[in-house]
C-alpha cells in the first residue's frame, strides 16, 4: 500500500490526483498502474518524469512500505 500522487499533466491524463495502491516496490507500482491505464503507464516512464518517494527524488527501483508517498513529477514548468 502506497499513497500515489500525480502532478501537472499526469493528473489530467489519469483523471485522478491521489490514490492508495497496493505495491511493495516502485517497479511493482509501475506495473499495476500500466495494467490499469496503458497511457499513464507510458507517461510515467517518459523522459523527464521524476519520481519522489517521501519527497526525495529517487532513480531506479526502490522498496515501498504502507506509509510511502510516491509522487510522479512531470517536467517542471517553473513559476
Amino acid at each position, binding site marked *: 500500500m502506497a499513497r500515489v500522487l500525480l502532478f501537472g499533466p499526469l493528473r489530467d491524463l489519469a483523471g485522478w490526483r491521489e490514490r492508495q495502491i497496493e505495491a511493495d516496490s516502485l517497479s511493482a507500482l509501475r506495473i499495476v498502474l500500466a495494467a490499469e491505464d496503458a497511457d499513464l503507464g507510458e507517461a510515467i516512464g517518459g523522459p523527464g518524469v521524476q519520481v519522489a518517494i517521501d519527497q526525495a527524488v529517487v532513480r531506479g527501483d526502490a522498496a515501498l512500505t504502507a506509509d510511502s508517498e510516491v509522487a510522479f513529477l512531470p517536467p517542471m514548468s*517553473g513559476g
Partner: protein
Amino acid sequence: MTISLTEAPFDPGALLTAFTRGRSETGAVATFTGIARAEQGATAVLELEAYPGFTEAAIGKIADEARGRWALHDVAILHRVGRIGPGEPIVFVATAAGHRRAAFEACDFLMDYLKSRAPFWKKEHGPDGERWIEPTAQDHADRERWG
C-alpha cells in the same frame, strides 16, 4: 530566510515593508515581483500547482546556493499557487546584502531558477481552452548564465 507558498493574493509592497524593517547593517535590498500578464485577454486565468513541502524544500536549496555565492543578509521568497487572475502578483523575491551588486545578482539568479526549474506545474486557462506550459527557451538560457 523565509520561503513560502500561498493560495491567497498578496501585496508585494507589504512584503517589502516587512523585509526592510530594522535592517541597520543592510545597505541594499533588491526585489522582483512577477505579475500574471493579461496578454490583451488571451490569458484569463493561470493555475499553478506545487508539491507542498517538496516545492519549498527545492526552493530552499537554491536559496542556500545563492547564500553560498553571495554575501546575503537575508532572502524572502513568496510564490502564489492555485488560480491566479490577470494582473495579480505570482512571485516575490527579496534579497538583502551589504552592497547592491550582491543583492541584484542573487535576486536575478533566484528568479532564473524559479522560472525554469522550480517544482511548479503551470496551466493557462484561455479563451481557447486550457494548456500546460513548459519553460521557454529564454528561461533556460537565462538560467544557464549562472553556470
